[in-house]
């Protein structure tokens, strides 16, 4: 289970026997041996009931957490031996994040929020960063809102800005945790359409955690988790 990358291609993410437990006296095993490959251009949904381990898995893939055992590889690099600084560098270069709540920084404009990952990496503003952030805002249909503060955007607009932010460093994989969970049906459909379009146009892989069947069904692949294990992994 979990082998989904054509021969000759390096998977963006490769998980082998990943387990994750919490607690010392009372041990809770959240992930119970996960094997999973995510290939380039995959548009994958990660579904499952609450407590099935979806967000934990997402955090491990996103290098925000470390597995108790097993290995996580990002584009062929085993991240187990990397220190915090190297993990941060790899995360900045290869991964993008979209959260249920857009988590934009309210003190900054839409343009600055999109540019933030590159500003942090580059160390100072530069014309090319601004141009790339503007191009992405244009791609998500918000070029005219570039100078708006994050607090002046609607929920759907803010989430689109968050998607642009996730893409600005041109990551190989975007991890989205319930990206439509806080949006109404119409806005939710627009956001999913945007993700599909970006996937098709840019070839960026997506791993989308969702509870919504309508979102999952628009993905190429649905990985269903139950009780810390992958219950099913089917391509459409």
């Amino acid at each position, binding site marked *: 289970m979990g082998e989904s990358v054509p021969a000759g291609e390096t998977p963006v993410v490769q998980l082998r026997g990943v387990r994750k437990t919490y607690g010392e006296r009372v041990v809770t095993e959240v992930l119970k041996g996960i094997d999973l490959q995510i290939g380039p251009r995959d548009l994958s949904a990660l579904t499952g009931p609450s407590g099935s381990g979806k*967000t934990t898995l997402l955090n491990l893939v996103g290098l*925000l957490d470390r597995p108790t055992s097993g290995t996580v590889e990002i584009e062929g690099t085993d991240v187990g031996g990397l220190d915090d600084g190297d993990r941060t*560098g790899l995360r900045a270069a290869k991964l993008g*994040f979209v959260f249920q709540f857009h988590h934009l920084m309210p*003190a900054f404009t839409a343009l600055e929020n999109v540019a*933030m990952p590159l500003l942090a990496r580059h160390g*100072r503003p530069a014309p090319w960063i601004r141009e790339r952030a503007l191009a992405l805002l244009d791609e998500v249909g918000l070029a005219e809102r570039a100078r708006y503060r994050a607090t002046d955007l609607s929920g759907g607009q803010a989430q689109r800005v968050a998607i642009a932010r*996730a893409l600005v460093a041109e990551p190989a994989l975007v991890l989205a945790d319930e990206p439509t969970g806080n949006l109404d049906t119409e806005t939710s459909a627009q956001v999913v359409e945007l993700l599909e379009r970006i996937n098709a146009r840019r070839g960026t892989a997506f791993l989308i955690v969702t509870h919504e069947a309508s979102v999952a069904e628009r993905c190429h692949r649905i990985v269903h988790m139950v009780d810390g294990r992958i219950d099913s992994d089917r391509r459409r």
Partner: protein
Amino acid sequence: MPFPLFVALRYLRDQPLQTGLILSGIGVGVAVIIFLSALITGLQQSIIERTLGSQAHVVVRPQEESPRVHPDAGGALVSPSVEQPPQRVRPIDGWPDLRDELARLPGVSGVAPTINGPAIAARGGGSVALAVRGIEPASYLAIVDLESRLVDGELELTGLQAAVGTELARKLGIGVGGRIRIQTTGERGGVYTVAAIFDFNSVSLNESLVFVSLRTAQTLFGIEGGVSALELVTEDIFAAEALAARIRDRTGLDARSWMEQNGDLLVGLRSQSMSSIMIQVFVILAVALGIASVLAVSVVQKAREVGILRATGTRAGSITQIFLVQGALLGAVGSIAGIALGTALAMFFASVARNPDGSATFPVALTGWLYGRSVIIAMGVGVLAAVLPARDASRMDPATVIRNG
């Protein structure tokens, strides 16, 4: 603009009330430091100026004469007690060479030969005990600015001319051009014409000190060609004691600094400085706690954003820098406001309290060093106060803060 500065500036601008309050706190703290330092330094400078305005920083004299003990033929001491002999006005051997040598010492900005001895002034039926000082006006002006102390006449001390203080002139009822008889204990003396009257702002000095020319004093005290003291001024007045010790070691002469001669004054000045430093330390502590508490609250408020920054690839070091820069910025801007407020307060205070002659009762010393020091202290305190909040921020687990956000 570097990334940490960009984010720090925006965070501060985004919370105007919080930023304004802490800036006010730092500003008031720095203003207190500026005001207190300016006032106390000004007062100390004024006291030192008044004290040293009429004396040298170091005075070099021959060693005092010690009693001689004469044993009898069998080696036994005959006298039941040993008495200190009366001190005479004695010359320094080879003083011209020594003067040149002292003038070449590092930190010495002026040397003047003088002769100091006791005498009595008489006019009509009145007489007053004097301290006569023989000087070369040209070299002595580098030690004491006599010109600025003159209230009448001119400092031309040739032949039998003398400069007397205002109190002596009043007591003897004389003015410029008047004549007084000055006589030493050695029964030498003469009638001198008053060429100038000075005011040292000291009743005892104005009453007893009389200046005559060096040559006249040599004759008066019977040390033709000699001088009884070499008086020095130093570039740094507080280096006088070390210089005096060096001269003592080098020449074997009696060298005394103004500090040794004004021990009580020095203790008073030091106590004043200590009180001022203690007050400033507590003010700095209060400012540091203020900055630390504001930044600690800011870290809690920004926890989610810090998590997002970390998740999107910002290194822990950059997160630390964002909060350290905020501390430094608060210190810098707060100190500039404090400098403005402290300067205004000090100048207002100095302008309100005035002496009858128009000079400030409480002189204030507002210097570039005071301003620079205040900015450096405030920025340093800002950065130090930000260390713990910054460390907490950089250690935040992005997954946890995003999950709890």
